[in-house]
């Protein structure tokens, strides 16, 4: 199972990838913003996207809208990992096409549960 991890923070990308490795997922591609994420999706196949919200060039929300608008990627499960935890934020993310939502800071157990829940649906 291959993930695309999209976050402008190299630290957060590393933390997410380390967490994925810890819970049994070893194959990850990376991108530092939404635009780079789209470029990655055009050249590599992934099974799930994990993305931040606040990023330069293209935000996570715009990235997800673009993913959902593309026939080749519109069915990909998307997990958003962000510090934006207000109810309105979560509603906006779900409307944009996010399947599940994790608020930082997070534990490996939370990430594992969210992934397994998305895969079950």
């Amino acid at each position: 199972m291959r993930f695309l991890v999209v976050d402008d923070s190299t630290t957060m990308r590393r933390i997410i990838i380390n967490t994925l490795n810890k819970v049994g997922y070893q194959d990850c591609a990376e991108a530092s913003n939404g635009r780079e994420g789209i470029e990655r999706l055009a050249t590599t196949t992934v099974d799930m996207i994990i993305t931040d919200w606040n990023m330069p060039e293209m935000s996570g929300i715009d990235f997800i809208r673009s993913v959902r608008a593309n026939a080749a990627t519109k069915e990909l499960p998307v997990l958003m990992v962000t510090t934006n935890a207000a109810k309105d934020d979560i509603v906006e993310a779900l409307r944009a096409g996010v399947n599940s939502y994790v608020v930082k800071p997070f534990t490996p157990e939370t990430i594992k549960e969210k992934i397994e829940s998305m895969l079950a649906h």
Partner: protein
Amino acid sequence: MSQIPQEMLSTLIASTQEVFETMVFTSLDSHTPIEGEALRPQSNVVGTVAFAGERCGVVAFYSTTGTARTIAGAMLGIDAAQVNGEMPDAIGELTNMIAGTFRTRMAATGQPWAISIPTVTIGSDFYTKYVSDVRRVLCPFSMDGGEVFVELILTTR
């Protein structure tokens, strides 16, 4: 008695401890908060995130360079000696999570606000001065191999 509401202070302390436990994999012991500018931390690394809304102010994180490397190494899963250019990004992300958790918890009590992107200053012999009238409380913490400080700065308007 602090002029900053005790609820805000205890929420900031709890938020900082939660972020360290989940993302730095270490626990922080909290010590008595210090009001005003009586004590300035001996720090070369300062992360700040501003917030605005029901209240306006800044959450600032302070540590020495050595402690910041230890923290960054723990976050990245590498030895502190291997940490180099990653440290500012790690401290920025850490400060962002502390401020974000603080904001989320305060929003639950009916005080919503927005937060800025984090900034990190690294150097020596510098002092952060705020132009507006502010109240500030410095929260000291000790951890394995060092100490860190988190300051809450509120505008008085």
